């Protein structure tokens, strides 16, 4: 298995999915790295399954991390200057606007339950309904309905529905 190639192909998408899933860039980076370490140790037999395998493993890593407590959050709160991505940007107003958007999207994603969030974010990464169904333990047919509901819920939370704009 060519880990270097797989890293190149999947790392950024995996990080994006995990950061959207958790809202925590540190945790996302750690979980993505952990997934690749596990891949190097003992990944799936066929390359065709690697992408879904990586996402599944990394999702489990962040869930386990959250079950284990919020030590990471405590560390970040104690040393906010150590948060990656917290580097000052040239334009403060742009930075503020971006931060507001991030908070709004974060709050909307947090309003989804874990299953809805997984389904929606896996769809964003281009997974098939069959792969999504396998990841969340449901039937392929029910994935469509679940995506439709999650999309509507997130869209309302984000204020993107026409009736919500007054």
């Amino acid at each position: 298995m060519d880990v270097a190639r797989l890293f190149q192909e999947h790392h950024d998408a995996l990080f994006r999915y995990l950061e959207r899933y958790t809202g925590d860039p540190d945790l996302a980076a750690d979980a993505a790295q952990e997934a690749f370490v596990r891949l190097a140790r003992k990944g799936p037999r066929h390359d065709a399954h690697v992408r879904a395998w990586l996402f599944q493993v990394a999702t489990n890593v962040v869930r386990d991390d959250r079950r284990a407590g919020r030590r990471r959050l405590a560390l970040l709160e104690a040393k906010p200057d150590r948060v990656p991505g917290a580097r000052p940007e040239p334009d403060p107003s742009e930075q503020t606007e971006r931060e507001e958007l991030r908070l709004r999207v974060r709050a909307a994603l947090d309003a989804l339950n874990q299953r809805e969030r997984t389904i929606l974010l896996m769809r964003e990464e281009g997974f098939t309904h069959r792969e999504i169904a396998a990841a969340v333990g449901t039937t392929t047919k029910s994935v469509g309905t679940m995506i439709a509901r999650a999309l509507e819920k997130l869209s309302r939370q984000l204020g993107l529905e026409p009736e919500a704009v007054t």
Partner: protein
Amino acid sequence: MTETLMNGAAHLEDGELLRYLDGESEHPERGAAQRHLAACGECRARQETFERRARAVSAALAAADVAPPPVRLVEMRRSPLRRLTAAQIKAAAVLVALLGGALTVSPVRAWLVDRWHDVRSAFTGGDDSAPNPLPDEDAQGSGSVAFVPAAGTFTVRLTTRQITGTLRAVMGADSVASARVVGAAGGVDLVVLPDGLAIRNDSNAQASYVLRLPGAITELVVEMGGRAAQRVRSDELAGAGWSIELGR
């Protein structure tokens, strides 16, 4: 819930519309959905709503994304210390993939410490009595690391000047770089970076460091506490090597 049209045909369910939209519906469902959408304005409107919603949500998510961390894979070659299996080499390669900026972050470092134990096992064959090359947060003091640097210029970054000590660098014949702490009294961490080594010391530390560089290194750069970097050519490292006083 399925509703019924005047002509007796049922409206498409949300799941059917989503499958159609995502290109997931198969024959004969796809054909039936196509025919229904051609005849039913209400379902066409719902389909357009789903499309608009999906696009808007994607755009909002993308606009709020943060850039991925600066990571890369570094190929790790065979160490003379022990023959590694392919899986162990790959695990080691992932270990050294983090760039320096991320290593200053405690959670990332904690991860690195965890992974280092895996890689150490690869080098030592899982011998737990072997010296710990990257000390735990609460067991700092001395140690050694061995790794393959990623670039021809090898950079050593010391946090600060300390009470006493020296840094000595010599050239080796193999492809592995190693660093060893000698006579440490005070907290000192050795952290492997893709382009070299970070020595996380403090101003009260009393320790010396011996650095052995692989033959492929063309230049050593020493940065200490934000002062101007010292650059040393590889020929200055030959023989007895090159050293610098770290004392204040």
